[in-house]
C-alpha cells in the first residue's frame, strides 16, 4: 500500500477500532489513538525526508510527486471525481504540522483526560478529527476537500460539545457547526460556479486550464470571494469569527488541536492550495487582505479585556489567523504558510500550558483567581513564557521571522494594512504580557487553590518542552519558506529588527500596568472608559447577531408560520375537509328512511327518464 494512504487512514482505523472493539478499556483506547497518530507522523517524516533530500540535489527541484489516486465517482462524460492524495511541498509541510503537533497533543491528552468518564469517546473523536484534517491536506480536488471539510466540522462539533451535559458546551458545539455551515454554503456555491465554467474539480487540471477559459474579471472575483467564504467560516474570520471563542468549552487539548493544527488552519491551507484561483483577481485579493486585517486588529483589541485564560488565547488565534489571511490577500501564500507553521507550534504550546494551569488549579479558568504560579509550576511557566515571546514576535523566536515576513509584504503592497499589522503586533505583546503577569506573577489571590496547585505529570510537561523547542527554532534560517518555494528569497531586512521595538513596547506597557503584587484592570478601565466596556463585550457582535436572528429571521419565520397555519392548513386542507363534510350532511337529508319517500323519488325519477326517452 502507498505510504500516503497509511498516513491518511491510520487515524481512521484508530477511530474504528476504538468504537467497535476497545471502547470499554479507556487506557487501551487512548493508546490505540496515540499509536495511530505516531504512525502517521513517522510516515510523514519519511516522506518529508525523501522530498528534502531530493530538493538538496543541485538542479533538481522536485515540487511534487504523483500521489495515489482512484476514480471514485464517474457520472457519464461530465462528472469525474477522483479520490486521491496530493504530495507536494505544501501538503508535506502541512502534514508535518498536523501529525507533529497532533502527536504532542495526543500524548498530552493522556495526562489531561485521565480519569474522565468518556475517555474512549474522546480519543475516537480526536482520531476522527485528525483523519478529517489529513484528508483536507491530501485532497486533490474540490469535492474531496469539501467532504473532508464537512468531516472536520462534524468532528469539531463532537469535540467542542464533548462535555455535552454542560449546556454551554452543547450550545458552543451547535454554534460552531451552524456558523461554519454559513461559510461552507458560500464555499459550495463557489465550487459549483467554478465547475460550471471549467467542468472539472481537479486542482492540477483547474490550475492548467484556468487561464485558457477567458473568464471575465467579475466572474473570477465572484468565484474567489465565494471560495474564500469557506475559509472565513473555518478559519473564523470576521464576520464569522464568533464560534471560535465559544469553542473554548471543549477540553483544552481539543482547543489546542483546533487552534494549531486542524480546523482553523484548514481555511488558510485551502486558500494557499488554491492561491492560483484568487491571485489573478485583484478585487478578491483586496477583499481577502482587508478581512484578514480587520480580523487581526479586532480580535487583538478584544483579547485585551478578556478574563478567561483560554479565551484570551482564542482571540489571539483569531488575530494571528487574520495575519495569515491578510498574507494570502497580499499575494503571499508562502508567508501565510510560514506563519501558520510557526503559529501551530507556539499556539499549541500556549494552549497546553493553559491546560496545565487549569489542571493545577482544579479547573479554574479565571485569570484573576490565579497569580504567583511561577513558583508552583516552573516548567509550565517557562514554556508559557517561550510561547508568549514567540507569539509576540520577539527575536530570535519563531514568531519573529514569520510575522516579519508578513509585515514586510504588507509594507510593499498595502501601507494601511502594514500600519494595522504593526499596531496589532504591539497589542499582541500587550495582552499576552497581561496574561503572563496576571497568571504567573504577583501574589496568589486564591490561597486555597494556590496551596493545592502542583506541576503536571511528565506525560503533560514532555509535550510542552518539545513544543517549546520547536517554538524557538521553527523560524530559523527561513527553512520553511525555502522548502515551500526554492525560488523564494528570504530577505532579512533590518526593518525587522526595528519592528522588534513594537512588541517590546507592548511588553513594557503591560509590565508597567500588570506586573504588581495585586494587578487589576482599573488603570486600563480608567484610561479607556467606554471603549473598555465595548471591547470587553466583544463589540457586541454576538448581541447584534442575536438581534438579527430574533427580529429579521424571527419575522420571516412568523410570516411563514402564519401562511402555513392560515392559508395552507386552515384554508386549504381544513377548507377541503369542512366543504366535503357539509356536502355530505346536506345530501344525507334525502335519506329519510321512509319507504314512501324512496318510492316517491323513485317514481319521479322513472317518470323523468321515460319523459326524456319516449317524448323527446
Amino acid at each position, binding site marked *: 500500500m502507498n505510504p500516503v494512504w497509511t498516513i491518511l487512514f491510520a487515524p481512521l482505523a484508530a477511530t474504528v477500532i476504538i468504537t467497535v472493539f476497545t471502547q470499554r478499556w479507556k487506557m487501551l483506547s487512548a493508546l490505540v489513538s496515540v499509536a495511530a497518530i505516531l504512525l502517521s507522523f513517522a510516515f510523514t517524516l519519511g516522506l518529508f525526508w525523501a522530498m528534502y533530500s531530493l530538493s538538496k540535489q543541485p538542479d533538481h527541484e522536485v515540487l511534487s510527486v504523483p500521489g495515489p489516486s482512484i476514480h471514485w465517482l464517474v457520472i457519464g462524460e461530465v462528472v469525474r471525481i477522483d479520490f486521491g492524495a496530493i504530495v507536494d511541498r505544501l501538503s508535506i509541510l502541512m502534514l508535518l504540522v498536523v501529525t507533529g503537533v497532533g502527536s504532542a497533543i495526543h500524548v498530552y491528552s493522556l495526562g489531561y483526560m485521565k480519569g474522565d468518564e468518556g475517555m474512549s469517546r474522546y480519543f475516537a473523536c480526536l482520531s476522527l478529527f485528525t483523519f478529517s484534517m489529513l484528508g483536507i491536506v491530501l485532497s486533490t480536488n474540490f469535492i474531496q476537500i469539501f467532504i473532508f471539510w464537512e468531516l472536520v466540522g462534524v468532528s469539531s462539533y463532537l469535540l467542542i460539545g464533548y462535555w455535552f451535559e454542560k449546556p454551554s458546551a452543547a450550545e458552543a458545539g451547535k454554534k460552531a457547526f451552524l456558523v461554519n455551515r454559513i461559510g461552507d454554503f458560500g464555499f459550495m456555491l463557489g465550487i459549483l460556479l467554478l465547475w460550471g465554467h471549467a467542468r472539472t474539480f481537479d486542482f492540477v487540471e483547474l490550475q492548467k486550464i484556468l487561464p485558457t477559459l477567458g473568464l471575465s474579471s467579475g466572474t473570477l472575483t465572484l468565484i474567489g470571494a465565494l471560495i474564500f467564504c469557506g475559509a472565513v467560516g473555518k478559519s473564523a474570520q470576521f464576520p464569522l469569527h464568533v464560534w471560535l471563542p465559544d469553542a473554548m468549552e471543549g477540553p483544552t487539548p481539543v482547543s489546542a488541536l483546533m487552534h494549531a493544527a486542524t480546523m482553523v488552519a484548514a481555511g488558510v491551507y485551502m486558500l494557499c492550495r488554491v492561491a492560483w484561483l484568487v491571485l489573478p483577481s485583484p478585487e478578491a485579493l483586496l477583499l481577502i487582505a482587508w478581512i484578514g486585517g480587520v480580523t487581526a486588529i479586532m480580535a487583538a483589541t478584544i483579547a485585551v479585556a478578556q478574563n478567561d485564560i483560554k479565551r484570551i488565547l482564542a482571540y489571539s488565534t483569531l488575530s494571528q489567523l487574520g495575519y495569515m489571511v491578510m498574507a494570502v490577500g497580499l499575494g503571499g501564500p508562502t508567508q501565510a504558510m510560514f506563519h501558520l507553521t510557526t503559529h501551530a507550534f507556539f499556539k499549541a504550546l500556549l494552549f497546553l500550558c493553559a491546560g496545565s494551569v487549569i489542571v493545577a488549579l482544579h479547573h479554574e479558568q479565571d485569570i484573576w483567581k490565579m497569580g504567583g504560579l511561577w513558583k508552583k509550576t516552573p516548567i509550565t511557566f517557562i514554556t508559557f513564557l517561550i510561547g508568549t515571546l514567540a507569539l509576540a514576535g520577539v527575536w530570535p523566536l519563531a514568531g519573529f521571522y514569520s510575522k516579519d515576513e508578513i509585515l514586510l509584504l504588507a509594507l510593499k503592497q498595502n501601507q494601511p494594512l502594514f500600519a494595522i499589522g504593526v499596531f496589532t503586533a504591539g497589542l499582541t505583546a500587550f495582552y499576552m504580557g497581561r496574561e503572563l503577569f496576571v497568571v504567573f506573577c504577583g501574589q496568589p489571590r486564591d490561597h486555597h487553590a494556590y496551596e493545592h496547585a502542583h506541576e503536571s505529570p511528565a506525560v503533560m510537561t514532555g509535550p510542552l518542552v518539545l513544543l517549546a523547542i520547536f517554538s524557538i527554532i521553527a523560524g530559523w534560517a527561513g527553512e520553511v519558506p525555502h522548502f515551500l518555494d526554492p525560488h523564494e528569497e528570504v530577505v532579512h531586512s533590518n526593518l525587522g529588527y526595528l519592528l522588534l521595538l513594537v512588541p517590546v513596547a507592548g511588553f513594557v506597557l503591560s509590565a508597567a500596568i500588570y506586573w504588581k503584587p495585586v494587578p487589576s484592570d482599573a488603570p486600563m478601565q480608567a484610561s479607556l472608559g467606554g471603549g473598555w466596556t465595548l471591547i470587553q463585550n466583544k463589540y457586541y457582535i454576538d448581541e447584534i447577531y442575536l438581534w438579527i436572528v430574533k427580529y429579521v429571521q424571527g419575522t420571516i419565520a412568523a410570516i411563514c408560520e402564519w401562511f402555513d397555519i392560515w392559508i395552507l392548513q386552515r384554508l386549504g386542507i381544513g377548507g377541503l375537509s369542512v366543504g366535503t363534510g357539509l356536502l355530505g350532511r346536506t345530501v344525507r337529508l334525502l335519506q*329519510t*328512511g*321512509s*319507504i*314512501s319517500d324512496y*318510492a316517491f323519488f323513485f*317514481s319521479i325519477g322513472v317518470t323523468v327518464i321515460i319523459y326524456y326517452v319516449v317524448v323527446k
Partner: protein
Amino acid sequence: MTSAITLNDYLAISGLLFALGIAGVIIRRNVLVIYMALEMNLNAANLALVAFSKFNKLPEGQILVFFIIAIAAAEVAVGLAIIVALFRRNQTVSVDDLKTMRL
C-alpha cells in the same frame, strides 16, 4: 251500436291500474297494502303485455305474462315471509315505524 274495444282502451286501463298501484305504494302506510299495490303494478304490466300480444298477433307477450305470474307467486311467498318476520320483530306493519334504514 257496438264499438270494438281497441288497444288504446286496454292500455288506458293498464296505465290507470299502474298509476293506482304507484299511488298506493307512495301513500299507504300499511306494508301489506303497499304489497298489494305492488301486485297491482305487476298486473297492470301483464294487462298491457296481453293486449299487445293479442293486437299484434304475437305469442311472446303471453309467454312473458306467464313468467311474470310465476315469479310474482314466488315473490309473494318470499315477501309475505319477510313481512311476517318484520311483524314478529317489531310488532307493527306501519312504514312510519320502520325508519331504521338511515343515519
